[in-house]
């Protein structure tokens, strides 16, 4: 497989042709990763437990993420710009409640106001950052997309986008257009220190004050995720926290004093192994 990003090779409706679509849908590695990311995206949607949601899957492709939504018991509508992908999706008859629409995200959402209880999008939105014909302006398309998405989402619902930002400007562009459309929220970066496991999710919320969910890190293992940590919540912090006072006359105190004096440009003895040592009582 080449290291080139697929969005650099051309428009998605041409990139995901019959061969590429069937390769994508049958590659177990891709399916595994996409499934995991869809699971996490649904977790970030934070839908009420008992509700059977009506969800939107943006860039649903061959339906890997949709299968996860179905497994969670929700009903979904999928949008994609690649017809071969949708056809593969449609052939899979396991889930009779899903529905598919051939549509370019950049030309806006074709729905009435307040239709959906949530939206997820797995590895799709970065396609919008590229112009594939002379009349396409990424900034305008992103703006139109977010604006129309905001309209068709119910109040207090969320949209979660997993994507691979190419660089900082790209995620800034996506973020700023989302904010301009009226969403609030931000990026949740899972496993930020790992190059392989790192995943970026843009969590957008409509209306209301909601707390941005916490990102996963290597330390917080799966065991911790099921429970609430109350330690530290009841302890009141009084006085100054943080730095402890350095005891006068200690090694650390001498070092700090020397450093301060050196910074001021004064003539001081250089540090040696004898600095701060106690003199022997007898010599």
């Amino acid at each position, binding site marked *: 497989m080449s290291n080139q990003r697929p969005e650099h090779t051309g428009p998605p409706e041409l990139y995901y042709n019959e061969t590429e679509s069937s390769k994508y849908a049958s590659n177990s590695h891709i399916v595994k990763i996409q499934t995991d990311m869809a699971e996490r995206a649904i977790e970030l949607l934070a839908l009420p437990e008992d509700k*059977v949601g009506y969800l939107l899957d943006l860039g649903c492709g061959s339906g890997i993420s949709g299968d996860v939504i179905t497994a969670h018991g929700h*009903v979904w509508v999928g949008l994609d710009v690649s017809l071969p992908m949708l056809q593969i999706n449609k052939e899979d008859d396991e889930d009779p*409640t899903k529905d*598919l*629409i051939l549509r370019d995200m950049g030309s*806006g*959402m074709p729905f*009435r106001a*307040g239709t959906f209880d949530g939206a997820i999008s797995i590895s799709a939105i970065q396609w919008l950052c590229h112009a594939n014909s002379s009349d396409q302006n990424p900034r305008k398309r992103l703006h139109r997309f977010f604006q129309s998405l905001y309209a068709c989402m119910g109040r207090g619902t969320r949209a979660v986008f997993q994507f691979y930002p190419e660089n900082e400007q790209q995620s800034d562009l996506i973020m700023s257009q989302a904010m301009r459309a009226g969403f609030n929220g931000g990026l949740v970066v899972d496993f930020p220190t790992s190059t392989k496991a790192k995943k970026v999710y843009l969590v957008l919320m409509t209306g209301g004050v909601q707390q941005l969910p916490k990102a996963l890190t290597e330390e917080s293992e799966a065991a911790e995720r099921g429970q609430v940590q109350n330690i530290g919540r009841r302890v009141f912090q009084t006085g100054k926290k943080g730095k402890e006072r350095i005891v006068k006359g200690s090694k650390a105190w001498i070092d700090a004093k020397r450093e301060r004096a050196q910074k001021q440009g004064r003539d001081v003895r250089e540090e040696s192994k004898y600095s701060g040592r106690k003199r022997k009582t007898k010599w």
Partner: protein
Amino acid sequence: MKLLTHNFLSSRFLKDVSTGYPLKLSIEEKRILDSALDVNFLKNVMVKIDYEVLYNVAESIGESELLPPPDAPVTVDTLNDEQLNKLHRVLVCLDVIVGTLECPESGRVFPIRDGIPNLLVNEDEIA
């Protein structure tokens, strides 16, 4: 495409179209899928559905019998099992395979093929 989706579709994204709702649906080929009734989902979605639009479409394809008439507001709790099943059949089980969607204002036609409506538009058609 399902009537559930049709009920939420709007062609407002087109240039000089103010509501674009409801889209005129004509059906050439349809099929009935097998799926289990989910009352919870119906409850959630019936709040948002434009029932009159749904009823009119169902009537145009001869599926409206048993459905409550659209002149009074419909709540899922007051319906009997037969009506619930019928509602579920019309909303979720019925799949339009071939047909067209037409914008009520501009007359732009969107084809439905293989059960997938094609809502692709050119950049110069959008506002």
